[in-house]
């Protein structure tokens, strides 16, 4: 009856294919991460994380210090309390004394503009600092009237605006969608009775989950950017993402609500608590870790989203100052990375952003794991 060898051969082949597939899957991940880190890691450093994206040139006035301590060093500007250096034919502020007057510098609008280490001095008084020697620069900075006017260029190349914008959009989106999503999940799990209404809501959620993000992008642009005249802004982006994230938040929250044992509800109601009290005092607290996981999952989606944000929040690298209008346009890390590849084909810098993104994703994954594990431990003990 048995064709043992034949079976063994077939088994062996299939087993080989299984191992091969698993290896391929892992290898793909390794190659992707390897590629991104190889290309991008050299560009990731403190400056990259903390600097603005674009170079920023400002003219400032500095009132000199009279009682400065003399060092007699060639690179020290006594009246300003700064060390300067020559870097790539530019005069750069190397260090700043703690009592230096450049900390009280003001721009042309009389607003404070504190100079920082690394700022490039382009002009001081009437002296242009292009191709100038260190001695000449020191002399130009030390001489002249009590107030010296300087042209300062702050080097960009950093992703600080995108980091801040990403955080803004995460915050805004969650403020909008988390309460709605959680309330919807509560309705579905605690209130809704089987029937037409429930079917319609579930059907809508399932469809919402399947709509590709580019369609959300179209919708957001049409409704929030154009019709509601929010223009490319963090708010328009956050509205769009809020709708997109509803299914994730609702279904994840609902799962955790389902896990809250029925006996909790019964004993709470049995003690005379109303439904609302039971929900707020018993059900939500015991579902909190799960809700937290839902929120972390959503953060992951927001961080990674591009198609729904490019035409709603724009791709300008700036720290948004308002919620709507031209000052509110903001690129997240991901949309800026997309922009870099599409507009400049700069794979290196794009990969540097990607490194930051991957680290973020790993951190979020670990965080949600941590919460789940702690939560499970609590349940089983």
């Amino acid at each position, binding site marked *: *009856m*048995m*064709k043992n060898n034949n079976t063994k051969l077939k088994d062996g082949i299939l087993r080989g294919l299984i191992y091969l597939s698993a290896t391929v899957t892992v290898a793909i991940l390794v190659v992707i991460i390897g590629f991104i880190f190889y290309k991008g890691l050299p560009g990731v450093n403190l400056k990259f994380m903390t600097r603005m994206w674009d170079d920023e040139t400002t003219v400032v006035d500095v009132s000199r210090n009279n009682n400065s301590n003399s060092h007699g060093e060639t690179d020290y500007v006594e009246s300003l309390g700064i060390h300067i250096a020559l870097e790539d034919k530019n005069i750069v502020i190397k260090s700043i004394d703690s009592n230096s007057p450049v900390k009280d510098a003001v721009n042309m609008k009389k607003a404070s503009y504190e100079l920082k280490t690394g700022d490039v001095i382009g002009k001081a008084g009437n002296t242009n600092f292009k191709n100038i020697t260190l001695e000449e620069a020191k002399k130009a900075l030390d001489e002249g009237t009590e107030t010296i006017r300087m042209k300062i260029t702050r080097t960009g190349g950093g992703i600080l605006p995108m980091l801040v914008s990403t955080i803004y959009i995460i915050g805004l989106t969650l403020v909008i969608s988390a309460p709605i999503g959680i309330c919807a999940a509560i309705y579905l799990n605690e209130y809704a009775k089987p029937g037409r209404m429930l079917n319609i809501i579930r059907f809508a959620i399932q469809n919402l989950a399947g709509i590709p993000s580019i369609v959300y992008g179209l919708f957001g642009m049409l409704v929030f950017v154009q019709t509601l005249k929010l223009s490319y802004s963090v708010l328009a982006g956050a509205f769009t993402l809020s709708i997109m994230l509803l299914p994730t938040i609702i279904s994840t929250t609902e799962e955790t609500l389902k896990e809250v044992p029925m006996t909790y509800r019964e004993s709470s109601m049995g003690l005379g608590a109303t439904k609302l009290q039971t929900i707020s005092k018993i059900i939500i607290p015991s579902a909190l870790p799960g809700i937290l996981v839902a929120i972390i999952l959503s953060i992951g989606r927001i961080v990674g989203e591009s198609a729904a944000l490019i035409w709603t929040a724009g791709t300008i690298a700036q720290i948004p100052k308002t919620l709507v209008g031209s000052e509110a346009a903001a690129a997240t890390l991901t949309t800026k990375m997309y922009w870099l590849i599409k507009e400049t084909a700069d794979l290196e810098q794009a990969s540097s952003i990607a490194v930051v993104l991957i680290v973020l994703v790993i951190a979020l994954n670990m965080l949600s794991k941590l919460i789940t594990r702690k939560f499970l431990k609590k349940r089983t003990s």
Partner: protein
Amino acid sequence: MKNETKFSVKDLNLYYGNFQALKNINMELYKGQITAFIGPSGCGKSTFLKTINRMNDLVEGVKISGNITMDGVDIYQDMDAITLRTRVGMVFQQPNPFPMSIYDNVAYGPRIHGIHKKSVLDEIVEKSLKQAAIWDEVKDKLKKSALAVSGGQQQRICIARTLAIEPEVILMDEPTSALDPISTLKIEDLATELKKDYTIIIVTHNMQQAGRISDKTAFFLTGEVIEYDDTEQIFNFPKNKKTEDYITGRFG
């Protein structure tokens, strides 16, 4: 009744991690008979049954010492588990048909062992279902899902599925515990019928069942065989006080 040894068990010990589930089992199981294993829950009777076709291999952390021979061949040393299981079939506590048609369920075994010819399969399926005394009930719905029939019928389909691989021995692990009394009787009749061609070893909670159908009975307690003898002897003149207590229902 002549006693021709089918299995010979020597100094068998079995551990789940640090827990010893079977202690020093020594016994002979005979061909063409029904042997019943009885005893309270957790006494090791099911564990022992599963060592006979090496289903325990699938459980993590199991260690076995001693040996079991079938027709003189050591089933752990000199036989691979797959060959063993085609010769020693098993029927489980819960009817567990696959979510396929009745036909495909019964044909499953022959197919995995390389029989694919339709006419041969048809023959095997019919023969097995007839042997399992369920042919008349299902012959018109062979293409229907095996999950769509009653629990008793499902269990007989599972028996047919076991018979289809033409084993020499059938292990039954509390085969009727999930069934109603009428279905139970049908399975018991079937077991008695099958005894002619097969060696049957059955684990049961149901003492009456053991008394009704078995030739030999072994009483297990905390991993040990307390008493093993002809069923008549065990039920009427138990030698051990513990056996007597259990059989008369005075136990625990």
